[in-house]
């Protein structure tokens, strides 16, 4: 089984001990290199330029929020990191994004390996119409990360990390579509964790959830950032202020300002940022 691993071309350079716990905190040497390094990145759908010359970096094991008015390119940016935008025909890009030091847009990048290392949670919960267990086991099963006999342990750990275990431990074989919306979204988070990613992208993960379910997901972020680097796109500024350590403000495809969340929300350097966070536009 494990002998028939998929060929992984450039993205995986060192085999990871998949079941070993992560180091408790970033080493000083690691601190130097950011988790995500965006280098003069531009992106266009056909003629329409959506992202212009982005240049910033994202801290490891922290929550970085991307805020901005509708259509400012926040989701496009997020989907550029795991190249989900490749599905759309006639897109062009310039510059590059580095995830953990490795180029996302270099020739010969193995998308499968990239997406295994960069998990994503979508706007609406989109569990597969499979059992709860099979949803979480989907990624590790597909990518053959662990031997089959270890899957139950991995699934349990991911569900615990997503704070869902106690609610579903007796219904692992039931269809995931029977869970509530909030549970489904936490299941999608657990499913993304199943791949043991380095980076977790969240595209407005609470926009379809009620306030209580939203609160649970936000609490979860505090737990998750101890082990994962998280980038969250949100249109909810209170949410960005509550959950994030760093905030980037996008407007019309440009990064207007990027700073500590506290500074962005108390003394923004840029007038457009202030106008947006005080609700004068957007």
């Amino acid at each position, binding site marked *: 089984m494990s002998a028939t691993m998929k060929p992984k071309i450039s993205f995986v350079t060192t085999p990871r001990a998949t079941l070993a716990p992560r180091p408790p905190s970033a080493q000083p040497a690691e601190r130097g290199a950011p988790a995500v390094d965006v280098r003069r990145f531009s992106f266009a759908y056909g003629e329409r330029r959506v992202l212009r010359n982005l240049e910033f970096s994202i801290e490891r094991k922290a929550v970085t929020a991307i805020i901005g008015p509708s259509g400012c390119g926040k989701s496009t940016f997020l989907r550029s990191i795991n190249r989900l935008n490749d599905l759309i025909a006639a897109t062009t890009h310039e510059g590059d994004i580095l995830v953990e030091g490795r180029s996302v847009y270099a020739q010969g990048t193995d998308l499968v390996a990239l*997406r295994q290392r960069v998990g994503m949670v979508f706007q609406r919960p989109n569990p597969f119409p499979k059992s709860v267990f099979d949803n979480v086991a989907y990624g590790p099963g597909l990518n053959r990360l662990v031997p089959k006999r270890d899957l139950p342990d991995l699934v349990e750990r991911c569900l615990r990390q997503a704070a869902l275990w106690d609610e579903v431990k007796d219904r692992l074989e039931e269809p995931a579509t029977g869970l509530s919306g909030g549970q489904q979204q936490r299941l999608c988070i657990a499913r993304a964790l199943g791949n043991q990613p380095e980076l977790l992208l969240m595209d407005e993960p609470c926009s379809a959830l009620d306030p209580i379910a939203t609160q649970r997901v936000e609490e979860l972020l505090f737990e998750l950032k101890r082990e994962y680097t998280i980038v969250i796109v949100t249109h909810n500024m209170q949410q960005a202020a509550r959950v994030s350590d760093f905030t980037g403000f996008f407007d019309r495809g440009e990064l207007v300002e990027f700073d500590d969340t506290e500074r962005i929300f108390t003394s923004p350097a840029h007038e457009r940022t202030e106008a947006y966070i005080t609700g004068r536009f957007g």
Partner: protein
Amino acid sequence: MTTTLASESVTQPPAPEPPSLELASYGDRVFRWILTLGAVSIPVLLGFLVYELWVGARLAIAKFGLEFVTTSTWDPVAEQFGAFPLIFGTLVSSVVALVIAVPLSLGVAIYLTEFAPKSVRQPVAFLISLLAAIPSVVYGLWGIFVLIPILRTGAFPFLRDAFGFLPLFQGPIYGPSMLSAGIILAIMVMPYIMSVSREVLLAVPDTQREAALALGATRWEAVITAVLPYARSGVIGAVILGLGRALGETMAVTMLIGNRHEIAASLFAPGYTMAAAIANEFSEAVGDMHLSALAYVAFLLFVVTVLVNAAARLLIWRVARGSGVGSKAL
């Protein structure tokens, strides 16, 4: 809307008379009765049909009873009738058709929805749907003059050489046979299975594909592990639609199947189907018993079709739980 105007209380135009509710409800009532009549007429028609078949078949039912289903003699002169070869032929030719048509049409549907360039999708789907518009007698003629010569000289000998160890591919090769009929049926039901499964696959939300891809699936893995399972009940529905067409198809089958009241293990041997027997023999049937036997066959064809569809629906119902597309539509 006009809360601010109300306080000014000047020259408010008088509210227009509300349309007469009486009249509207009268029209509604008539409309409703017409629709109800239309809806009721379908089951009534169906009941009448079954009754007529029953009446026509009474003579044969009284004489042969249920043995009609299990015996194989078909002798109009001696007035001995048994429909087992016909039922066998109907089921086998349909199964052969599905075995060929389902993988092909699913493959085409998957290609057209997931992989084909945008400019190819619509034209190809249209062309395949066009296959459904060709009259079945044309398929029959094409089968006799084009398909059978090819099969007899090329495909059948090859199959016999390669798979001759299976009873399915043994014995003499005539041309008209169960396999020829199955192949022509496959071509005829393909457009139905393809169109419906294409619609079903199109209805799978992109978020499902994205979820799979974002977890490190390749395009192909996303189709196999996420898109198809999501669409499975709809795809089964498409197959059942095809099966329904195959069971009842008459003209092309009777031109290609060889029309012999026999049961053979080999697919190279000729056979017969219920629909083909009725079409062939009805005009030549002289005795009352012969006519009645044919009506009995028609009645059985009806029963078989209903049973197969019911079983298939049960299957959908059982796999549809937790599945996304098509479970409600079917």
